[in-house]
């Protein structure tokens, strides 16, 4: 199994979620984050003061998936999250050794 993590623009959440559900993903976890990358942040002038803001709000989505679906799901996320503007985010996958569903104790793919 894999854990896919996606850092996306906050307002893209609905679309990404919808796309994942359509694909058949059964669950996911979302948290708030902020980040920077190419989108280096920007300079703001507020009340006469100029300063650099370099962390931009993002959302972080985690989905546990079966290994063979990983590439497709990455694809689905990337398509749904894309705005073609800088700061669209990253998606990555890491290998997972074990997964357990708390309620039932099921493990492995059944637990997803």
């Amino acid at each position, binding site marked *: 199994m894999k854990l896919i993590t996606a850092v996306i623009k906050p*307002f893209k959440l609905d679309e990404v979620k919808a796309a994942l559900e359509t694909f058949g993903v059964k669950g996911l976890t979302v948290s708030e984050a902020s980040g920077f990358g190419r989108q*280096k942040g*920007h*300079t*703001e002038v*507020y009340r006469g003061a100029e300063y*650099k803001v370099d962390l*931009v709000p993002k959302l972080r989505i985690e989905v546990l998936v079966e290994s063979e679906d990983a590439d497709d799901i990455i694809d689905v996320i990337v398509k749904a999250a894309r705005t073609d*503007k800088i700061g669209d985010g990253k998606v990555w996958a890491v290998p997972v050794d074990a997964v357990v569903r708390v309620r039932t104790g099921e493990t492995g793919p059944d637990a997803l």
Partner: protein
Amino acid sequence: MKIDSGNTAWMLTSTALVLLMTPGLAFFYGGMSRAKSVLNMMMMSFVSIAVAGMIWVGYGYSLAFSEGGGLSSFIGGFGDAGLVGLEKLATADDGTGIPQLVFVAFQATFAIITVALISGAVADRAKFGAWVVFSALWVTVVYLPVAHWVWWSDGEENGKAGWLFDLGALDFAGGTVVHINAGVAALALALVLGKRKGWPRDPMRPHNLPFVLLGAGLLWFGWFGFNAGSALSAGSTAAVAFINTLAATCAAAFAWIVVEKLRDGSSTTLGIASGVVAGLVAITPACAYVTPLGALALGVVAGAVCAFAVGLKYKLGYDDSLDVVGVHMVGGIVGALLIGVLATTSVNDAGADGILAGGGFGLLGKQAVAVGATLAYSFIVTLVLAKLIDLVMGFRISEEDEQAGIDSTAHAETAYDFGAVRTGVGGPAPAPAPEPTTTKVEA
């Protein structure tokens, strides 16, 4: 006549109280908004104070409360424009002995809050500039005439007066002029602007319910100036208006949460806050004309009716975002019509007898005419005005800006920054540039 320091003291206080209502409203509405649009919501209230306040000094008071020559039944003139020369006058012939300028200031606060009330219907999506233009024009072409119709008279017996005043319709503190007027204008505006993206599918729950309660508390407090202050003096009429304002509000708040409990299983904070406001709205026109027991009854009806009325928008499909129609229009109508039932001259000689006091259906009829006239005039003129503004400058922000949040896109600010991680205004990235760019968001 001589200044009466007691009456003047009460009217100065009342004026300050009513002015506080608009910041109170900003919290009532702001708390109900989403976190990404609370500032815009509050700005609409604050800028209404600025705009309506300047207009009032400039020509508003004059058009509403001075003699208008041949048009006097419908609108005043420019005789008192700029308030020139009013500094040392006491209000002439009404026996209250308050300085003319105190009356001017008191009435200014009514014009201010009326326009601010409308803004609740267009949360999250109105261009700020368009709102500013709208508020200025609306005060001019809707508020000033209606206020003149209902409240102006030259003080002489058989003298001139606004046509609703002449008719004998009762509106002690502004049920028609303020609440029905604002409520139906809100409906017109909601129709012109259309629904928020995602409404009614997405949850758009209040982001800060304590703020809603803060707003309700400040409104309640200020409303004693609104209602008891409308006596223009500190005496028995003010006393009646005061206790009735308390009684009706308690009853309406309680009625609303009882409806919720029975219908939905829980009483909510938003419910009790809305019930408070519904009670205040409904008692406003009636507060000096009914007994305290009558006020309790009126409150119960208003609370229960409005608790159902706020659900209408989902059936009829207009996005009156913060329930201006369901609370102010409906509550205002309930209050105005119940005067026809509950009013009694045993409380106030200047009032009239409604059905229960044996006065027959005459008063109810007059009340219905006043309600109908206000509804029709305000709805139509507001609709035309809003459409015009929409054509000329666009009234609604772009879909993208709405989704990102109007606070950051229109005001370059976000309401809160609690985090240890400090981020910027959080709007969409300014531009796909590899190097730092400068977004001007100066203040």
